[in-house]
């Protein structure tokens, strides 16, 4: 029984909620970094042949960065706004902690994968712009389509964090 | 027409007449030779022209294919494909005598080409090359034959020209000159003859006159004697 006690001591509601918030920031951040990285490499390839396209390519590179922001937003919601861990001393039950964790899942997972997928579409857009600079807006629309699902995930996480978890 | 500077003697005349006879016979022979050479030459030129036409059309065709092959290959690829040429061939050259003209005869001693004996592999070369190379190969004997014919024609032409010059010089220089000299000597001799006759006639005249004088003198002596006796 000592082991279970120790476990209960470690995995308090607060710790579980922190885990959820951190993973939301970590995974969507990683996804964004990877996506932006892919587009950045692709853009660098084009720029080494045609430096004049820098402005157009920079916009495309920024697109997969939003997921990281969404992840950070959810982190902020959990840690600062809803939990008020920084300025108050809210104590969550284990159940509430798990609720927080579950609420973070959408942006955690969708953020990671959608950022990479968006990075690939944006990189394809970079290659499109390399050949037809006038089609930059279309390339952006294509990449922005992926954003929809990141926003859905953000919405799901946001609503759950705010209204799903009842504290106090 | 200038004549030859000779002593107009009967000996010389005889010699010249003999030379004239030889020249006339030579002239006739050379004329026959020239005509025969001309005949041969014309035959040769005709077949030469046909062969040349054939060789040229086939070469042009082969070059068209070759140019296309070159167009799709890089210089290095083409040159190395042809780096190892055909197997070496022997070409013994003999001579043949046409109307005392020595003309070359090539003995076309090719080792039979195997159709597949290419100097290059097929993986690195386009198919256009095959036809061109095959034509170049097939055409080689014809080209050698053409070379042989053209050299023969050239040698024959030279000989014809030489013979023609000889015939002309006999006909227009030597023979007229000899004839002229002979006529001159004959005239000279005739003139001498006539001079002699005149001299003889003159001597005879003088001798007759002398005889008459003597006869007259004798007659006078006889008359005087007779008068003296009478007187």
């Amino acid at each position, binding site marked *: 029984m000592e082991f279970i006690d120790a476990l209960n001591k470690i995995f308090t509601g607060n710790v579980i909620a922190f885990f959820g918030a951190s993973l939301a920031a970590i995974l969507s951040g990683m996804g964004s970094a990877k996506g932006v990285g*892919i587009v950045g*490499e*692709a*853009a*660098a*390839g*084009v720029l*080494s*042949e*045609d430096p004049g396209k820098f402005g157009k390519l920079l916009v495309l590179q920024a697109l997969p960065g939003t997921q990281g922001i969404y992840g950070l937003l959810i982190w902020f919601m959990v840690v600062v706004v809803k939990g008020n861990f920084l300025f108050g001393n809210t104590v969550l039950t284990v159940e509430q902690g798990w609720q927080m964790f579950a609420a973070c899942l959408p942006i955690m997972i969708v953020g990671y994968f959608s950022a990479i997928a968006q990075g*690939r579409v944006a*990189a*394809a857009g*970079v*290659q499109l712009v*390399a*050949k037809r600079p006038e089609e930059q807006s279309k390339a952006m629309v294509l990449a922005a389509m992926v954003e929809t699902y990141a926003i859905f995930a953000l919405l799901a996480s946001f609503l759950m964090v705010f209204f799903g978890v009842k504290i106090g | 027409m200038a004549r030859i500077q000779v002593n107009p003697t009967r000996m010389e005349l005889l010699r010249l007449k003999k030379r004239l006879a030889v020249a006339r016979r030579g002239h006739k022979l050379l004329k026959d030779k020239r005509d025969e050479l001309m005949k041969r030459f014309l035959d040769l030129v005709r077949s030469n022209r046909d062969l040349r036409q054939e060789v040229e059309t086939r070469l042009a*065709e082969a070059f*068209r*294919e070759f*140019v*296309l*092959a*070159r*167009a*799709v290959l*890089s*210089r*290095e*690829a083409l*040159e*190395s*494909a042809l*780096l*190892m*040429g055909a*197997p*070496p*061939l*022997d070409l013994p050259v003999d001579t043949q005598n046409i109307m005392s003209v020595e003309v070359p005869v090539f003995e076309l001693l090719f080792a039979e080409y*195997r*159709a*597949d*004996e*290419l*100097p*290059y*592999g*097929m*993986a*690195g070369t*386009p*198919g*256009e090359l*095959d*036809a061109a190379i*095959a034509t170049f190969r097939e055409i080689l004997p014809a080209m050698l034959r053409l070379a042989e014919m053209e050299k023969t024609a050239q040698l024959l032409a030279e000989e014809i020209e030489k013979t023609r010059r000889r015939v002309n010089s006999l006909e227009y220089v030597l023979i007229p000159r000899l004839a002229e000299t002979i006529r001159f000597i004959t005239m000279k001799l005739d003139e001498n003859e006539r001079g002699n006759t005149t001299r003889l006639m003159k001597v005879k005249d003088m001798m007759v006159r002398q005889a008459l004088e003597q006869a007259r003198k004798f007659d006078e002596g006889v008359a005087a004697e007779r008068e003296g006796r009478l007187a």
Partner: protein
Amino acid sequence: MTERTTAFRRPAPDTDYAYASSRVRALEARVLDGARMARLSEAQSVDEVVRAMAEAGYPSGEQPEQSLSEGLAAQAALVRDLFPEPGYDEVLLLPQDAHNLKVILKAFLSGQLPDGERFVGDETSALGEGLLAGSGSGDVPGDDLASLPRFADVPTADSLRPYALSPSLEPFQAVYEAVRDRSAGRIHPFLEAAAVAAVRAFAQDPVGSVLDAAVDRLLYDTLSRKVAALGNPWFRDFQAFRVDLLNLGVLLRVLAMGSPAGRLAQELLPGGSLPETAFLRLEGATGEQVADAFRATPLAPLSALAPEYGKPGVAARFGRLADDLLSARVRTGRRVLFGPEILLGYLHAREMEAKNLRLVLTALRNGIRSAQVRDLLRDTTF
């Protein structure tokens, strides 16, 4: 033989190719596409072609043909440097090395034929004796260069350099010296094995094609193994298809020449998607039979030319069609976002473009009608 058991490597993730692929896509914009090429085929002067070449990124120079090969070599070098994973260099450069080896061997072996005497069966010839007796330099024959007999009267390396391709995996000088000195283990094992195989084959039948074919067979065998080891399925299929096209060409050429039995087997290349027996079966077949035999394969459009192969101009059409079939494969491969397919496809496009430019230049210089040139222009729209 060399590296029979090449380990199959896990290919790099496609995102490793993000930079390279995008850079190549940017470069592709400069390739002279079909429409521009068609206009260029109407060019009236070499200057027009030279201007178009400058637009396409070729260096300017006195000789358009020279700058053409220089530009092509530069593009190839650039692309080779862009590959983020190893192995592609070797596959792309090995054919250049094989070319150099052929040059060296041809030059060395031409010198072995003094005054038309063929050394086969000639007991006094060093090469013939060494090879046919099965022992070079008195040693037990092996597969390395040391097993070859000495070459006599070899030409200098400098006299051969104009025929050599650069760059290559092994410097020309190194290959030259290794073959001349018959020192084993100094050059790529493929080159060493190819040199030995080629000299042996040549000793049996001293014809240039036998020498080339021996090197090429080993080259394509090595290539198909190395390409498979790279782990890119498209490239593997592309290479196999390329071999199929070459093999069909070999079959038709052998049939057109009426070569004796056995020649086909010598010239056919390994590593195709169709087995060599598919071609060997057709030894001595008619054109119609060949066309029938490949009706159900991707080679169908090409084999349709078989009945008229040998007529003037058909060989050139065959070449164009074969290139276009390859280009079609490249187009399907290039649908990926990132990957070696894009780089390899670009190389292919540039090769086709260089062929087109060479065609146009040759036509201009030799007064070939532009209609005929247009018929032979390779598809460069990707």
